[in-house]
C-alpha cells in the first residue's frame, strides 16, 4: 500500500532524510579525531623451532602497543609449498602487505611488478647514518635494476658441524681440507654411525651448492650462464659422490626431510652435518658435544660456503605502503628477540645485532660470524647480484632431484647434465 505523497508527508520525509544524514556527521568528525589504526598483514615464515612463532607474535604485539596508528596482524606461514602460497595469494589479489619468504621471492615478484621497492627506507637510513649497519654485500643481494626490492634481515649460512664424541672415539682430528674430511668420514662409519647425514629436500641441494662454491664455482658462471657441468661444480659433485660411494653417507638421506636428518645428527648417528650453526641452540642439541669445522679448503685452495640471504619485502597490493615501511624499519631495528628468545635459525645481517652477547658469547656463533659470513656466496654464484629466475631455481625442486640422485649413489654426470639442461630451460624464460 503506497503512502500518498502529501505535503505533510514530504516534509516529514525530508526531515527524516536530514536526520539520517546528520547522524553520520558526528561519526565523521569522531572518525577524524580517533582515526582507526591502519591494519597491516605481516606474513612471516617459520624461521626457527616451535617457540619462534610465539616470540614473533609477542614482538608484533609490542609494536602494536607502542603506537596507535598501525595495527599489525601477524601470520605464521609454513615452508611447505611456500611458493604456491604466495603465488596464489598474489594472483587472487589477497597478498599481504609485508612478508618474509624465499631468498629470491622479492626479486622475482618485483620483475612481475608485484613488489613495492624499499628505496625510500634505504634513503632515509642513508641520511641518518643507520645504513652502515648493513654490509655492502648484504645490500647487493637485494639490489636489482638499481632498486632495492627488499630489506635484508638474515644470513642463512651453512657450515659443517661435527660431533666431538664420535671423532674422539675414533681418534680422528677435525678435518680442514676436503681430503681430510673424506678420510675422517670414512673412518668413523661403522656400527650404525655414518660420516655424514643429509636430506633429499632443500638442505640436500644446498649441500651440493656449498660444495660447488667452496670449490670456487657454483650453479652459474660469472656471466650468469648455467655451469653445473662446468669444471668447478663438476669436481664438487664428484667429491660428494665419492663420499656416498665410500659408504660414509647415511643411505636414508635421499628420502629424509631436513628435520629427519637434523634429528639423526642430534641423536649421534653421524659425525658431520651441514646446517646453519645456529641449530646448535635448539633444545634437542647436545651442545657440549657439537663443534664447528673451520671453513674447508677445496682442492684448489678455495674457501666458500652457501649463504641464503633472507629479506623482508613489501607488496604493491598493499594499501598502506608508508605505514608498512614504518613497521618494517621498527621490525628491522628491534628484532633481536627473534634470536635470543625465538631461536631463529639464521644469523642477523645487522652488524649491531651480531655484537650482542647472545652471539659473541657463543663460540660457535662468534666463529661463524667472523669466519663464515665473509666467505658466504649466494645461490647465483659465481655470478654476482640477484635475478628473478633464481626464485624458480630455489623453489622448483629439480635441484632436490639432483641431490637425491647423488645420495642414491648415482654417478654425478647424468644428474649434473639433467640439472644443467633444466637450468638452461629456466634461464631461457
Amino acid at each position, binding site marked *: 500500500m503506497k503512502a500518498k505523497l502529501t505535503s505533510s508527508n514530504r516534509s516529514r520525509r525530508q526531515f527524516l532524510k536530514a536526520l539520517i544524514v546528520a547522524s553520520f556527521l558526528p561519526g565523521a568528525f569522531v572518525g577524524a579525531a580517533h582515526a582507526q589504526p591502519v591494519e597491516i598483514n605481516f606474513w612471516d615464515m617459520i624461521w626457527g623451532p616451535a617457540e619462534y612463532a610465539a616470540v614473533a607474535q609477542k614482538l608484533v604485539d609490542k609494536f602494536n602497543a607502542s603506537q596507535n596508528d598501525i595495527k599489525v596482524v601477524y601470520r605464521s606461514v609454513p615452508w611447505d609449498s611456500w611458493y604456491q602460497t604466495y603465488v596464489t595469494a598474489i594472483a587472487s589479489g589477497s597478498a599481504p602487505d609485508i612478508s618474509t619468504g624465499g631468498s629470491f621471492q622479492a626479486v622475482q615478484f618485483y620483475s612481475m611488478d608485484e613488489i613495492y621497492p624499499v628505496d625510500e627506507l634505504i634513503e632515509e637510513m642513508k641520511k641518518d647514518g643507520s645504513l652502515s649497519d648493513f654490509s655492502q654485500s648484504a645490500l647487493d643481494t637485494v639490489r636489482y635494476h638499481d632498486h632495492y626490492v627488499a630489506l635484508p634481515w638474515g644470513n642463512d649460512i651453512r657450515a659443517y658441524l661435527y660431533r666431538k664424541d664420535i671423532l674422539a672415539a675414533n681418534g680422528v682430528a677435525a678435518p680442514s681440507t676436503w681430503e681430510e674430511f673424506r678420510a675422517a668420514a670414512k673412518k668413523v662409519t661403522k656400527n650404525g654411525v655414518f660420516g655424514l647425514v643429509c636430506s633429499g629436500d632443500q638442505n640436500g641441494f644446498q649441500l651440493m651448492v656449498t660444495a660447488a662454491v667452496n670449490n670456487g664455482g657454483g650453479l652459474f658462471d660469472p656471466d650468469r650462464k648455467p655451469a653445473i657441468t662446468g669444471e668447478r661444480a663438476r669436481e664438487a659433485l664428484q667429491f660428494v659422490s665419492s663420499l656416498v660411494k665410500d659408504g660414509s653417507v647415511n643411505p636414508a638421506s635421499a*628420502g629424509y626431510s631436513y628435520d629427519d636428518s637434523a634429528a639423526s645428527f642430534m641423536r649421534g648417528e653421524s659425525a658431520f652435518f651441514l646446517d646453519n650453526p645456529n641449530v646448535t641452540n635448539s633444545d634437542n642439541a647436545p651442545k657440549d658435544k657439537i663443534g664447528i669445522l673451520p671453513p674447508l679448503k677445496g682442492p684448489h685452495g678455495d674457501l666458500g660456503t652457501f649463504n641464503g640471504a633472507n629479506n623482508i619485502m613489501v607488496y604493491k597490493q598493499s594499501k598502506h605502503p608508508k605505514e608498512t615501511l614504518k613497521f618494517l624499519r621498527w621490525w628491522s631495528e628491534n628484532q633481536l628477540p627473534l634470536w635470543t628468545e625465538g631461536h631463529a635459525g639464521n644469523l642477523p645481517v645487522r652488524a649491531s645485532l651480531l655484537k650482542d652477547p647472545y652471539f659473541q658469547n657463543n663460540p660457535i656463533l662468534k666463529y661463524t660470524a667472523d669466519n663464515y659470513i665473509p666467505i658466504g656466496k649466494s645461490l647465483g654464484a659465481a655470478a654476482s647480484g640477484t635475478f628473478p629466475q633464481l626464485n624458480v631455481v630455489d623453489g622448483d625442486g629439480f635441484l632436490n632431484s639432483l641431490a637425491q640422485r647423488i645420495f642414491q649413489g648415482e654417478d654425478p654426470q647424468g644428474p649434473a647434465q639433467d640439472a644443467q639442461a633444466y637450468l638452461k630451460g629456466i634461464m631461457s624464460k
Partner: protein
Amino acid sequence: MNSSITGGTRVWRARAKPLMTPELTTSAVLLFPSLLLLAVVIAYPIAQGFLYTFTDSSLLRPGSFVGMGNYGRLLQDRSFWHSLSFSAIFALSNVVGCYLLGLGLALMLQRDFPGRGLFRVLLLTPWIVPSLVAVVSWRWMVSDNGALANKIIAAFGGDPIYFLSNGNWTIVIVILIKIWVSFPFMMLSLLAALQAVDRSLYEAAEIDGATRWQAFMHVTMPEIRGVSIVLCILMTIWTVNDFDTPWLLARGGPANATENLVVHAYRYTFARNDVGMGATVSFVTLFILMALFLLVMRLTKGEHNAR
C-alpha cells in the same frame, strides 16, 4: 496431447515426433543445474585450457602465443616420457592388483557365513579414510631403519631397506598403497555383479557336472565380464588422474621416480609458474585417456557384435 484437436490433426501429430515433448522439457529442466555446473567447471576450462597450451602464460600474467612450441618441448622432454611410463605402470599394476584382490574377496563374501555383514564393512576402511591418512599410516611402516617393515626384516635377520630413498622401492610402495585404497570399491561392485548373476545358470552347470572352477570360468566370468570391463576402465582413469597418492608419499620422488602425469602438470603450473606447459601436459593426458577409452569401447563392441 490436447484432446480438443480434431481427429485428423491428432493423427498427424502422433506420427511426426514433436521436438519438445513434455518429457524432454522436464528432463532438460531437471538436468539444468547439473548442466550449468558442468559448463562452468568442465566445458569452459576445457576450451580455455586448450587455448593455454598454445601460450606461455603464468598464473600472474597472461603470456604470448607460442604455437605448437609447448607440445614440441614436451615430446623432447625425457621427464615427460618418464611420467607417462610411470603413469602407465601405476595404472596397470593397480587395476590388476585391486581387481584380483577385489574379486577374490567378493567371491568369499558371496557365500553366507557368520559375521559376513560385519566383515564387509570392516573391509571398506581403506577406501573411506582420507588419502592423507592412508599415506601417513603406510609411510610410518616404511620410513626408516626403525620402521615396522624394517623391524620385521630384522627379525628375519635381514639388513634394513631404505624404502623411500630408493626409487624402485618407492614405486612399489606407492602401488601397494593405491591397491590398498582401491580394492574395496572393486570388491563392492563385483559383489553386486556376482549377486546379480542368475542362479539358474549355476544350477544348470551343476547338472551338467561342471566343477567349481569350470562353473567359475564358464558361468561367473562371462556374466560379470561387462561390469568388469567398465570397472577396470574407471579404475584406470582414476589412477592416471591420481595426484594425492604419489604427491603425499614422496612429492613424486625420490628423484622424480614416482612423478606421474598429474604431478608433472602440477609442478609446471605451481612450482615453475608455467601455465602453458602445465595445460599441455594435462591435455595430452586427456587425449591419451580418451584414446584408450575409445579403443576399449571399439574392442568390446566388436566382440559384442560378433557374439
